[in-house]
């Protein structure tokens, strides 16, 4: 029994082993001056920069504006993609009407639209939210649509023969059957969301983490640039953890 506890804590620690070693080496190499701080500042300096930005409230401001953009864009794109995927998955008419068009739009890399979007909406909030929503829409759409299309026909037939139809058939059989695929789409789109936001904020913004990094570049503040990158990594990891948590809850029958 004691052994299994040791084994468990070992398994907990193992994923963090390489990051820790990496950090320690980084710190040593920087302190010894092997890497100049103009190329890569030491972890301690980055922590100092973080403390300073936290205490003057700048970090909070940039972080919250980035989070708000990400969230609003994600909700708009996600809802549109989800509803469109549902409609096209369930109704033949809507599938015939929309699917081809959506598939054509999907093949345009949404980041290629940045110049166009800036001309349309300027560099205000609308353009960034638009880009995020566009990026999120397609993975959610595709996975919802395919999820519904690939629900086991046998289960649908069973549901019908047991008297389920209409919304009951949808909520008891079709939607749960498509759920794991939908969640895959959501997780994938979270990655797209951050990527889009980083690019958009770096190119055209006056606030947000991406802006903070670009602004720091002008003043050669290496520590802030690296800090921004780390924050993005943290956000990415965090959204993945949240998505996994919901996946675990919603798909617990799958275990």
């Amino acid at each position, binding site marked *: 029994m004691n052994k299994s506890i040791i084994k468990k804590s070992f398994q907990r620690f193992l994923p963090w082993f390489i990051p820790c070693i990496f950090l320690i080496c980084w710190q040593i190499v920087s302190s010894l001056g092997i890497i100049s701080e103009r190329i890569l500042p030491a972890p301690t300096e980055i922590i100092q920069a973080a403390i300073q930005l936290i205490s003057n409230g700048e970090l909070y401001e940039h972080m919250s504006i980035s989070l708000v953009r990400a969230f609003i864009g994600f909700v708009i794109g996600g809802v549109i993609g989800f509803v469109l995927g549902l409609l096209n998955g369930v109704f033949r008419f809507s599938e015939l009407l929309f699917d081809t068009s959506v598939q054509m739009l999907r093949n345009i890399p949404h980041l290629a639209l940045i110049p166009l979007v800036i001309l349309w909406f300027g560099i205000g909030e609308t353009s960034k939210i638009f880009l995020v929503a566009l990026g999120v829409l397609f993975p959610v759409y595709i996975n919802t649509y395919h999820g519904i299309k690939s629900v086991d026909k046998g289960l649908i037939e069973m549901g019908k*023969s047991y008297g389920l139809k209409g919304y009951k058939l949808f909520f*008891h059989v079709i939607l749960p059957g498509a759920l794991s695929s939908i969640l895959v789409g959501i997780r994938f789109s979270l990655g797209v969301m951050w990527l889009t936001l980083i690019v958009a904020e770096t190119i055209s913004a006056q606030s947000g983490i991406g802006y903070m990094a670009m602004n720091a570049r002008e003043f050669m503040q290496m520590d802030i640039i690296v800090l921004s990158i780390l924050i993005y990594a943290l956000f990415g990891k965090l959204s993945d953890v949240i998505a996994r948590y919901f996946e675990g809850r919603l798909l617990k029958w*799958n275990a």
Partner: protein
Amino acid sequence: MENRNGINIQINKLEKVYDNRNVLNGLDVEIKKGEFVSVVGKSGCGKSTLLRLVAGLEDAEGGSIILDGEKLEGLNKKARIMFQDGRLLPWKRIIDNVCIGLSTEKRNKALEALAQVGLEERKDDYPSKLSGGQKQRVALARALVHNPDLLLLDEPLGALDALTRLEMQELIESLWRQKKFTAVLVTHDAEEAVAISDRVLLIDQGKISLDQTISLPRPRKRTNPAFALYVDDILSQIMNRNEDKEYPVLLPELSLSLLDSVNN
């Protein structure tokens, strides 16, 4: 007779065409109220098709299915079907699977049905936690909770091991005797058909080519010589062999004799 349950099925000139192929080709049969009928035949001969037509899951190209004097249109509401692969919803707990299509106030009925198949203590598990035989018992409970007049069974025991099969056969038989519904069982196992049913139907070329009443007393003993005769007879009919004993009737012996003729 107080046969509140059960239903009379009259099938006339039933035709079903898939891709220009007549799977059922003017099939005629009558199944009486409360009867237990097995349907056997070669793979692909249309057994499942017949069952799906009787369940109203598909429309026939021709002919009619009359249930207690009324022509079947659309879904057969008096029938419940049990599939070979169980088809439990993996995202619903056992009890909720049994409750599918059941109004909420009848939830205690679902518990009763689970108890009848001996699985009430597993009611809060997900199907993935059950064995194959247990899943089929849940599927049986789900079908029976509606008190159907007609129970359609499409090779429900095909995937089970021999011992579990026997147990399930006994369970199905005892529930049938208790509830007196009409039962149609599709099976590829002639022994199972003889053990459990009043009549065995053989489908060949889209028609009933054999309609054999099994007049053995219940409970049936497999060791009974008459039992073995029925099984042999049905098997040889399935294999399209005649009654003249040019070949031994049992399959293994047939293959042996074939082997001999090759060797000589």
